[in-house]
């Protein structure tokens, strides 16, 4: 790969970096030493300051105090341009591609030296040649708006490599990838690092990845470094978790199998939904979710899961077929949602489940603001009641306290996720559609969410769990279906699920659609 550069990556050090946001201390004298050729994992709970530290090091955010030293020289990074000049670049936790352009256009326009007159055929050929060398499947002709989160993530990484950045900061790059893809991505980055061509700084909540691929680890807690070590055999996931939260995280047990079959709450028949990307439509012949059952949907992102979820949540119209809830046609309006006690946690919750510029408190009460106690008899919004309800919902998944009045878009990624979970996974939810519910959560909170799903199931909630985390699906699901190119290509009982078979089906190699499929 030529564009990774011939020079070795520079050594990047942060010394005593500090940054506050109003009363919030995001970073409190943090040190970081990224040696050339290392894969440096940055760990910590939600809100620990990982993203803030990374942003300071790529010039996206100014530190209040402290120094940044690159190859022994003090540097000032006022703008991402300054960092680019030094070969430092970042893949953002929230995507930063131009949605209405194609992948190829995004990649070309990202180059500071983009020519005035672009020979697209030449660019396309150059990109195709480049991609041969990178284990990331992307379609250069696709429009970014039509891509699912996982596909966008791959484009983001390719873009950094194309820009010739030699120290890559990746903020939770794998949270939207399948385990295989994540392994491939990190393995590739690690190989490049081992060859001394790039360094990688990685924030993630998946400790297995850290163990498998990182060379160094730095753990932040409330803006301070609490551990910093090269990764060796003596360090396992439990150790890392203990460093992060101060104690070992609880594990979630597989739920006991259901005894009797409950009635189907959600039932999908002969459904056809047009795809955003214009690919093959979502075509599901039959899929049922019963009360007290978790049905897992596995699949590489971009295979129709998004459109299925949007159709269920009223965000996309159904072309053909039927979605029934409690044996009645599903109209995703407020009255039906309330009657069905429906909850929905979509992917990219900031974009799909919040009004980003409205306050956290307002976003927390989106399901209940038009009822007592928030709505008064005269149709007024009672701010005090709103605040109280929001506080209660925020507490459920420990959304950052004191942020209720702030625009939800200013919260850390994990906190947005917690807020939407708090709103949708209330006690009386009886039908839940959740996409990657533990997305961006630290180990403790992720375990909380999974426990919560199991609790809801126990109280008779029907759960459709769309996830790119196979372990999560296998641990939680009563039944797992695999989606590929809009269709259900495999259906299996959770207890009998075989990672190998699931992985093959996800990649489209499934002649083995099981006989047990679809009740």
């Amino acid at each position, binding site marked *: 790969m030529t564009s990774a550069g011939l020079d070795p990556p520079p050594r990047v050090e942060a010394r005593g970096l500090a940054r506050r946001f109003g009363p919030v201390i995001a970073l409190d004298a943090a040190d970081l030493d990224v040696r050339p050729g290392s894969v440096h994992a940055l760990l910590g709970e939600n809100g620990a300051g990982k993203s803030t530290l990374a942003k300071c090091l790529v010039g996206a955010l100014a530190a209040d105090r402290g120094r940044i030293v690159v190859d022994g020289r003090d540097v000032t990074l006022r703008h991402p341009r300054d960092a680019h000049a030094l070969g430092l670049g970042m893949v953002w936790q929230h995507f930063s591609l131009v949605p209405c352009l194609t992948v190829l256009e995004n990649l070309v326009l990202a180059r500071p030296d983009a020519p005035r007159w672009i020979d697209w055929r030449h660019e396309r050929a150059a990109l195709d040649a480049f991609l041969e060398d990178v284990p990331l499947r992307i379609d250069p002709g696709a429009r970014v708006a039509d891509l699912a989160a996982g596909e966008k993530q791959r484009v983001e990484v390719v873009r950094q490599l194309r820009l010739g950045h030699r120290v890559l900061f990746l903020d939770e790059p794998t949270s939207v990838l399948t385990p295989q893809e994540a392994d491939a991505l990190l393995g590739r980055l690690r190989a490049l690092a081992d060859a001394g061509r790039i360094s990688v700084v990685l924030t993630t909540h998946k400790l297995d990845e850290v163990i498998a691929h990182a060379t160094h680890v730095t753990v932040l807690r409330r803006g301070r470094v609490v551990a910093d070590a090269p990764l060796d055999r003596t360090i396992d996931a439990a150790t890392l978790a203990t460093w992060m939260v101060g104690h070992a995280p609880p594990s979630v047990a597989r739920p006991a199998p259901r005894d009797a079959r409950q009635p189907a709450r959600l039932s999908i028949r002969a459904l056809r939904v047009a795809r955003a990307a214009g690919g093959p439509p979502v075509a599901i012949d039959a899929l049922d979710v019963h009360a007290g059952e978790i049905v897992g949907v596995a699949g590489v992102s971009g295979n129709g899961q998004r459109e299925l979820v949007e159709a269920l949540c009223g965000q996309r119209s159904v072309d053909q077929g039927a979605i029934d809830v409690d044996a009645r046609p599903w109209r995703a309006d*407020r009255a039906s949602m309330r009657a069905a006690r429906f909850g929905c946690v979509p992917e990219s919750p900031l974009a799909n489940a919040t009004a980003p510029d*409205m306050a956290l408190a307002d976003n927390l009460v989106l399901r209940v603001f038009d009822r007592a106690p928030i709505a008064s008899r005269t149709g007024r919004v009672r701010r005090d009641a709103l605040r109280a309800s929001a506080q209660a919902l925020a507490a459920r998944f420990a959304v950052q306290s004191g942020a209720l009045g702030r625009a939800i878009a200013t919260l850390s990624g994990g906190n947005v996720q917690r807020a939407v979970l708090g709103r949708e996974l209330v006690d009386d939810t009886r039908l839940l559609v959740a996409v990657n519910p533990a997305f961006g959560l630290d180990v403790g909170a992720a375990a909380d969410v999974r426990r919560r799903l199991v609790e809801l199931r126990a109280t008779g909630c029907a759960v459709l769990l769309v996830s790119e985390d196979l372990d999560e699906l296998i641990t939680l699901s009563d039944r797992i279906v695999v989606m590929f190119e809009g269709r259900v290509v495999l259906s299996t009982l959770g207890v009998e699920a075989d990672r190998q078979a699931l992985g093959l089906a996800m990649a489209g190699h499934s002649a083995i659609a099981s006989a047990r499929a679809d009740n």
Partner: protein
Amino acid sequence: MVDALRPALESALLSAGALAVAAVLVIALVLLVGHDPREIATTLARSAFGSRFAWENTLSRAAPLMLAALCTAIPAHAGLVVIGGEGALVLGGLAASQAALFVADVPPFAAIAITCAAGMLVGAAWIGLVGALQQARGVNEVISSLLLSIIALGLFDWLLEEFLRDPASLNYPATRPIPDAARIGALPGLDVHAGLAVALVACVAAWWVLRRSVTGFAIRVVGGGVRAALGVGLPVGRLVVATCVAGGACVGLAGAIEVAAVHERAGGALHADYGNTGILVAFLARHHPLAIVPAALLVGGLAAASGPLQRGFDLPDAFVRIVEGVVFLAVIASETLRGRLLPPAAR
């Protein structure tokens, strides 16, 4: 600082800053055409706010501006940019002038109510169409409201010339004068028509509904994140159309009041650009229904000073329009500073 106050404070600072920048630009312009900016400023201030008469003049102009601004500000809460108030205003005025012809024998209060209702109805239908097109067919509301406004102006001229013209109005085509019963009088003790009170009530009502009520909350969710609104089952289409209908009713009412309180007939004078200037007022107020009141006073004062400025300094008719344009540009440009003025707002 209290987080909840931050956006409001930021909006106020942005508007004030934009006005300051616009003032500097206008001063440069005045110097360029060879006048003393101080003299112009004095004249402007005096003829807008310097006397009882000036105030009455300004207030009479501010009233339709407030209602016209609501036509942009109310749909803005649902995320729409509606800029077609002018057409709905003249059609509303025309409808009012015709309805008024039927109410000569009705008690005055009812006559006025019927006249105004006619204007509101037509305005609501016209702008409601903008919302309906956007929801049903995905037609961009900026374009459709602009084009529908042009159609409305053409329709107005045609109806007036062909069918509704008073034969007695020779060189100034206009409808027949409305009967006394439908005329709106002055506020007690002031030479300002009662439409001002109506406009103020409309602003306060819009504020209450949009910023305090449950419906307004739902509307703001639609404006802040359509996908989230759909995901929690809000009737997005109905809410969007409702904001357009409400905004259209306001601007139609402005037309009706102009007819019933000022011109006493519908004619070319109705097309006095209140609808377009209302867009400026709405943006200056950052679509806050209460902030529309001072913004309308400011812009109304500018309009009131237009005549004296032209006469006193031999400035062209376009001068005040240029000032308005500069203010508008400054206001829109200042919006790009939102979030940088009072951090934090970075993601």
